[in-house]
């Protein structure tokens, strides 16, 4: 009792609740050649925006658009050079709401 009271929020609704001003240039670049060799793939579970998605051919699909710019991915990554991380262009990226 109490555990299935209401359905959880769909992930896309969760991400769409935040505002992102997307710049055409990616601020994070993932080297999928390095990720192809990685068996642990900490980024997949840890990224709060779920931007790292495993592909059927053993690679990783990465999107930079709806990124919280938190830094979790590069901190948990064990592979040197796999994730090149920078801040987005000024004025772009996540914009948390004012009331």
């Amino acid at each position: 009792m109490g555990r299935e009271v209401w359905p959880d929020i769909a992930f896309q609704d969760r991400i769409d609740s935040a505002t992102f001003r997307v710049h055409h240039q990616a601020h994070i670049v993932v080297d999928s050649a390095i990720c192809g060799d990685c068996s642990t793939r900490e980024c997949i579970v840890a990224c709060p925006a779920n931007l790292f998605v495993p592909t059927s051919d053993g690679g990783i699909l990465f999107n930079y658009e709806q990124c919280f710019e938190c830094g979790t991915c590069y901190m948990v990554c064990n592979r040197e050079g796999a994730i090149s991380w920078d801040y987005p262009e000024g004025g772009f990226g996540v914009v948390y709401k004012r009331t």
Partner: protein
Amino acid sequence: MRDAGALDPATLDADVIVVGAGPAGSCAAIVLARAGKRVVLIERGPFPGSKNMYGGVVYPRILDQLIPNWWLEAPVQRWVTRRSTMIMTDDKALTVDFRCEAWGKPPHNGATAFRPDFDAWLADKAVVAGARLICSTTVTGLLHNEAGAVSGVTTDRPDGDLTAAVVIACDGVNSFLAKQEGLYGEFDAANYTLGVKETLALPKETIDERFGVRGTDGVDIEIVGCTGGVNGGGFIYTNLDTIAVGLVLKLPKLAAQKQRPEELIATMKRHPAIAPLVEGAELKEYSAHLIPEAGISMLPTLSGNGMLLAGDAAALCLAAGIWLEGVNFAMASGMYAGEAVVEALRAQDVTVSGLAGYQRRLEATFVLKDHRKLKRAPELVLSDRVQHLYPEFVTSVAERMFRVDNPAPKPGVRRIIAQERKRVGIRRRDLAADGVAGLRSFG
């Protein structure tokens, strides 16, 4: 030593560049601008606070020194008059609940506030004092003079280099400027937690009823034992007509298991002690941010030649279980950085030794005194025993104390404690050692 020529105001774009218009940067800029210094405050977001999130409670006492009667104008949601610490397992929860009516009235204690509101308000104080705020501009690196001292910043604006006598880096938990200057050792993921938060809408009357408060009084609930196999903690804070529900999760532990952050939040929200509080609430905004959580052991070198670090960039965040503070440490370190730079500019010496007033001020006040006193706390609070064994232990003891097992007579409390300690698998000497560590940290 830098020669006096390098400090010649006529050759520099500003006296001081402050990178990041969060609480640290804005307080530094307020102090500097009020002292008549030419300050440029650079913010990469479209407005101050737009990149910033936290759990939700700020303790602005330190603002008494910069903005008298700040509570009359600060954009707060509710004044915290009720603090609860909840220890939970899958089906039990033990709560210590404290109320203080006085905190609802001036001069107040803590308040819930949204960072985009609060940070923008504080940055405006710097602007009013005369600082030049430049938003939507990302600082991309540091400039150095021939002597190797920091002499300005590069930005992503065309011809966007800016020179100054001192750069104060308040560029947040990922501080690339501190890294570039070599002020940190290697970034160790074990020093960081990920904070994830849902801002959920509920009618104000519903929040008042569910959380037992009225008017602008608010509640702060800290939770241990709600993070599955990941070490961390949970929180629920009341805003005016939203509540903040979230978790902080130790990075290596999060990365080493299978549940994603939002799944862990969903599990906490289904807990019988939490579900009635959050039921029917509608998601307004999801957000995430890293927290420098390891306390004094992870602090970087706080100054370089021509440069100071403040706020999260300096890892000045206090995550000590019953005290979860960061914005106040940011505001204070920014303020003291500003004071130290005013002093250094007056003495025409912005080398590490000329800027030593910063470290001195931090050492003399709560900023480093609290961190030194609580140096063992973050490790203890996030330890496996506190996280995964003690919640089961204390809630089981409570359950057996309150369970009426007639016709069996009541067992003695000491016997219950001994039996439950053994059943949960806590060694007596570990319990004693943690007790001593706790007393040393918190006592």
